[in-house]
């Protein structure tokens, strides 16, 4: 291969580093009205009145919007395909506010200062209600977060808002009672995972203007431009053909920009006033008023025989979706569906649980999407089980983990909000990932621990993981390739580059197929007027789903070119040899260059435009797999952890771009380490967010991460473009369990509550000492 599986620099990297206008706010109209939101100071309240007179009298204030200005029509901001598996439980503005930071009203003014001043002049009277802040107590709490009658589910998701239940689900297979009674060893443990903030560097940003056809042109920093168009149309009752959503360069998303944020208010302002408008979230708003990862409590019970056969997994999950149910059901289901199949040889398993409403910042999509929470629980529990069995956890995993050619009943039972899709693992190099990782981390010389001369203890820990490659039968991506005169191509895709490099890898796939250097494929993505549809950048779908669409379109373009060449050269198409820049004829001197061919059909003879459009949806979702290994030096006096190395060995099929795939894995690892070790969204007893800036919510810095070792298994997934599976999320899954296992291996204390801080380690050591002395 000439272009695929190479380390090609991003097509747009230099231009962005040089500061050329690329991001949403770089493209805002300079005369934009500024839209700002008054946010609730209360966790739960009914708005009795909003006096907007003083604000409206301020010079430069264009309008003040309250819930009375919008049609009362519930929708979901989740940014999923239609109909959504998330409840329609949100109004553009509502008379209830359901968390500190929820939208009360919006002001529209000529500049920032005036907008800020106007916010301070709004007089709001609240009827303060008792909030639901502890999600363990949310179900059947006397306070109901969503009492309003209009809200509804789009299809059965277990929605019972009167009981504060946003979604519920249960599945089982095999005979659980028999499987446990046949087990020699049973362990039960409860794990908890925290809310994590996305902290993409570019805050949520949107701007809008009307064009000369009186259409609404929206620039949005979004992962899902086509869903944004649909949701705006549905929620604001603006005809969809009047809306164009353009996704410029996006400064990171990680799931946080799958849902829609300021788009509704900004679109409404421009639609009503005819004037350009914009909104850029402050960092405080990003923390307080966008989304977090769903906090979960995961109760897990495992049973195994003495010989080390895992017999049964019984699993209950309680998930906290906060004030709105975006991604409530599906994130919770993925905690099971993308974790359970790792151990596919069990006789029986059950996975069930509830997702509850509380009066906190809503939870939403976040890289890993439930799998990181589920992975922490199961991969910690497996090590606990092995300890009790006195079996080496590596030996145990080798014996019980899923292998190539195998399947799991979970694939067929559990989809994302619906039934799943049965599939065999045509590629699963977990065995290689495990062996290679053991070698790279030097496990045999470090497991379980090595006392160091400086008093610290070196230890290692590991976990296995899997993810998916798009949602089968749901996620669709499309691509159009156009041949230009001079013999170069345009590739337009609905797929959404949010920094992961999809424009580059999709151009690589097209260039490889059309046998040209990547420079000859000019890529443009995500513009609802100009590019074909794509669901957007989520669910690890882009490489596999959108990549397959690009591959199909490029193959189609090749066929069209061969047909043209055959006519020009007056031979049968079977005689044509497609050589990229030149077209040849078998056993003949006859030839035509692509430049001549394209110029001829553009200007001279039998003129025409060649375009090929193809689309793709998966009939399966081949999982990427990985084995993750952490090496830490831990101080037994202080609990301080030095992360020495993190080894990732990944089976993502053929990486389309080696360096960009490595970047996806390593970026995921470091976000996962943040969640494993110290990141935590904290709020006060009244529901006010404490961690509302980057000084109080720390993310890993350059100084925290000395070394990452990343390797790829040799793997070729037949159903993927050039053998590729997706790789966007898999990196984030293993760090919590790997770190928990390493801490246990070092000190013999098991932390079951994320994040694994030094403080928790010291407390656990003290508890252990107290128990031992009694």
């Amino acid at each position, binding site marked *: 291969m000439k272009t695929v599986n190479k*380390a090609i*620099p*991003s097509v*747009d*990297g*230099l231009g*962005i*580093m*040089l*500061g*050329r*206008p*690329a*991001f949403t*706010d*770089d493209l805002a109209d300079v005369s934009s009205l500024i839209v700002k939101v008054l946010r609730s100071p209360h966790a739960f309240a009914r708005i009795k009145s909003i006096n907007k007179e003083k604000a409206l009298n301020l010079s430069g204030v264009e309008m003040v919007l309250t819930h009375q200005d919008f049609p009362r029509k519930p929708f979901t901001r989740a940014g999923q395909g239609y109909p959504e598996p998330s409840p329609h439980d949100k109004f553009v503005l509502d008379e209830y506010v359901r968390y500190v930071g929820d939208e009360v009203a919006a002001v529209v003014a000529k500049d920032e200062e005036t907008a800020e001043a106007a916010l301070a002049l709004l007089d709001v009277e609240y009827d303060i209600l008792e909030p639901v802040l502890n999600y363990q107590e949310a179900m059947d709490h006397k306070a109901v977060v969503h009492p309003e009658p209009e809200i509804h589910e789009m299809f059965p998701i277990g929605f019972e808002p009167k009981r504060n239940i946003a979604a519920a689900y249960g599945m089982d297979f095999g005979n659980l009672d028999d499987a446990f009674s046949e087990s020699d060893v049973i362990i039960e443990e409860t794990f908890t995972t925290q809310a994590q903030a*996305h*902290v*993409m*560097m*570019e*805050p949520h940003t949107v701007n809008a203007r009307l064009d000369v056809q009186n259409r609404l042109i929206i620039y949005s920093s979004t992962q899902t431009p086509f869903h944004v168009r649909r949701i705006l149309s549905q929620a604001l009752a603006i005809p969809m053909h009047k809306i164009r959503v353009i996704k410029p*360069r*996006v*400064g*990171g998303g*990680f799931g946080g920009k799958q849902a829609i944020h300021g788009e509704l208010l900004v679109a409404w302002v421009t639609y009503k006033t005819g004037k350009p408008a914009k909104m*850029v979230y*402050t*960092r*405080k708003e990003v923390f307080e008023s966008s989304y977090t990862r769903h906090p979960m409590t995961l109760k897990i019970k495992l049973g195994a025989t003495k010989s080390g056969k895992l017999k049964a997994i019984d699993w209950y999950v309680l998930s906290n979706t906060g004030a709105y149910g975006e991604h409530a059901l599906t994130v919770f289901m993925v905690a099971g569906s993308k974790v359970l199949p790792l151990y596919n040889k069990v006789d029986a398993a059950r996975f069930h649980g509830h997702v509850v409403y509380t009066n906190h910042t809503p939870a939403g999509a976040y890289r890993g999407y439930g799998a990181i929470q589920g992975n922490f629980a199961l991969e910690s529990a497996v090590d606990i089980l092995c300890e009790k069995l006195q079996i080496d956890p590596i030996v145990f995993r080798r014996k019980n983990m899923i292998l190539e050619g195998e399947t799991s009943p979970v694939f067929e039972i559990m989809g994302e909000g619906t039934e799943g899709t049965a599939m065999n693992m045509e590629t699963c190099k977990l065995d290689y990932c495990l062996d290679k990782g053991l070698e790279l981390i030097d496990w045999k010389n470090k497991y379980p621990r090595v006392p160091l001369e400086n008093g610290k203890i070196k230890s290692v820990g590991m976990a296995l993981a899997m993810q998916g490659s798009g949602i089968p039968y749901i996620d669709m991506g499309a691509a159009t390739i156009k041949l230009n005169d001079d013999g170069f191509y345009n590739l337009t895709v609905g797929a959404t580059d*949010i*920094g*992961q*490099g999809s424009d580059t890898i999709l151009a690589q796939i097209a260039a490889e197929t059309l046998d040209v250097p990547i420079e000859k494929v000019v890529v443009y993505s995500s513009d609802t007027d100009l590019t074909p549809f794509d669901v957007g950048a989520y669910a690890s779908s882009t490489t596999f789903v959108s990549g397959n669409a690009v591959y199909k379109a490029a193959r189609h373009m090749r066929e069209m070119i061969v047909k043209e060449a055959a006519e020009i050269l007056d031979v049968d198409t079977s005689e044509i040899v497609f050589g990229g820049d030149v077209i040849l004829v078998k056993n003949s001197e006859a030839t035509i260059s692509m430049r001549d061919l394209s110029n001829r059909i553009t200007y001279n003879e039998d003129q025409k435009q060649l375009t090929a459009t193809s689309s793709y949806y998966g009939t399966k979702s081949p999982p990427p797999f990985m084995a993750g290994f952490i090496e830490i030096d831990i101080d037994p006096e202080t609990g301080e952890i030095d992360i020495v190395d993190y080894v990732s060995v990944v089976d993502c099929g053929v990486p389309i*771009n*080696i*360096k*960009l795939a*490595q*970047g996806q894995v*390593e*970026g*995921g*690892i*470091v*976000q996962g380490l943040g969640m494993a070790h110290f990141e935590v969204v904290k709020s006060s007893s009244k529901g006010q967010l404490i961690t509302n*800036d*980057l*000084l109080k919510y720390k*993310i*890993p*810095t*350059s*100084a925290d*991460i*000395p*070394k*990452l070792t990343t390797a790829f298994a040799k793997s070729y997934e037949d159903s993927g473009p050039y053998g590729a599976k997706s790789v966007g999320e898999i990196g984030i899954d293993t760090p919590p369990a790997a770190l928990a296992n390493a801490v246990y291996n070092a000190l013999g204390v098991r932390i079951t509550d994320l994040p694994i801080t030094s403080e928790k380690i010291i407390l656990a050591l003290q508890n252990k000492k107290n128990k031992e002395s009694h």
Partner: protein
Amino acid sequence: MKVKFVLNGVERDFEVKAGEYLLDTLRKHNILSVKKGCDASSCGVCTVLKNGKPVLSCSILTARCEGLSITTVEGEKAEVEKFYSYFGAEGADQCGFCNPATALTVIAMKRELKNPSESAIRQYMVGNLCRCSGYVAQNKAILNYLEDQS
């Protein structure tokens, strides 16, 4: 009020409000490489060089820039292109929102530190947050650039 300073090698007059920050002045004047990522001087994406030293433009009043030299990537094109050849080769760029600030900080480091160790490099870069890359590919690119170009 009027302020005069050298922006990317050219002395210019700026009409600013008393409380206006340099970040806002620059963006208003179409210097779009400087970004706003936080409200607490803690993310680094608004970094500019003030008389050659990296500083956060979100925390400097433009009124206090009288007579200074302010540099952004727009004024360091050749050096940024050189640095990018290493950065892009490692696939370190990802979303790119922090990349102009990263490039400026690295260019300043190259001029300030002689043969910095790997850990000194990581310490120098500690104020430039990146949520995408995991830093290791970036640091490798920085190391390669400093080794080859210093």
